[in-house]
């Protein structure tokens, strides 16, 4: 692959790296796992880059490839993440101190999201990123109706986890 292609990829990835960081936050716990997933996504993006023709924005394309990588990898991994590992999440959730109660609630919310499966996480991710259903459906390769139904189901599921 040519140097120019590589250079353009690295630059665009650098500008859009938060997308990957955010996906890592949702799919992994702990700094090492975050780094591993980040690297894996970067490599997958790089592999797919020659096929990226620029008819969509780099970020849109990156969402798709990165999420699919996370979903596939997550499937190979064991599904359950132990609650012990979970404690390590605390460091980034409680960086700043503000309303303790809200803080607690957010922590519980993250924990609840962690219990969702790979595709559900992807939907939550898109939701948090404020993507509309059209974009969600395109990125995840499901129909818009299906995305809506899934999202509703996820909300129900989260409610159940939060208020057992």
């Amino acid at each position, binding site marked *: 692959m040519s140097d120019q292609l590589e250079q353009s990829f*690295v630059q665009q990835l650098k500008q859009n790296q*938060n997308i990957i960081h955010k996906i890592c936050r949702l799919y992994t716990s702990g700094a090492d796992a975050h780094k591993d997933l980040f690297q894996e996504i970067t490599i997958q993006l790089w592999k797919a880059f020659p096929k990226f023709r620029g008819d969509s924005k780099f970020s849109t394309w990156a969402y798709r490839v990165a999420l699919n990588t996370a979903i596939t990898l997550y499937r190979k991994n064991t599904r359950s993440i132990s609650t012990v590992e979970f404690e390590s999440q605390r460091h980034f959730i409680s*960086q700043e101190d503000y309303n303790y109660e809200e803080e607690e609630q957010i922590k519980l919310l993250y924990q609840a999201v962690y219990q969702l499966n790979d595709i559900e996480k992807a939907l939550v991710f898109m939701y948090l990123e404020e993507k509309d259903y059209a974009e969600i459906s395109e990125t995840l390769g499901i129909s818009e109706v299906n995305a809506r139904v899934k999202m509703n189901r996820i909300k129900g599921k989260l*409610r159940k986890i939060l208020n057992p």
Partner: protein
Amino acid sequence: MEELDLLKKDWKKKENSFSQLSEKEIYKMLHRKSSSIVKWILIISIIEVLVWTSISIIYSTDEYLKSLNHEELVIYFRVFNFFNYGVILAFIYMFYKNYRNISTTASTRSLMSNILKTRKTVQYYVWYNLFMIVIGLITGFILAFSFNPEIGILKERMVNEGKYMAITIGILILSIVIAVGIFWLFYRILYGILLRKLLVNYKELKKIDL
């Protein structure tokens, strides 16, 4: 669901809380695939040993020697086998160490030197195996000619007629060359592809490191 909105608020707030990677770090990530290549070298070498071992269990030299009525040689073969497995295990250990090194190194420079080291180890490993194949074949021929009664007639002829001697030796040498050639090709395909990938990766790393 208002909880999700709370999460969204928090999510946005932390949008920029990630430590940012530099271009150089991203470049490096693209070339870290070395560790997966080295992992494959390790896996293939282990599979290879398992295959050879199972073949040698099915085809036992002990039985063959027994059929030749020279059981006293069994011990030599055992020693030879132990030595051979020892060396191969040492190689596998080195592959493992290379793999560990490559997947944990942080600096481009040490990654490069580790790649070179791995390539060398694999090359030595292939040469060792080819050498052992030659030794094995020669031993096999010597055994057959010295002790196998079925070859006795041929031996008598060889002693009497120079032409037979030349033809036989020619055939033996040819079969060694062919066997080594086949194995060489086999290793070239098996490890050659991985080694070439490592080399490509090495060259790319060199460019970054300038």
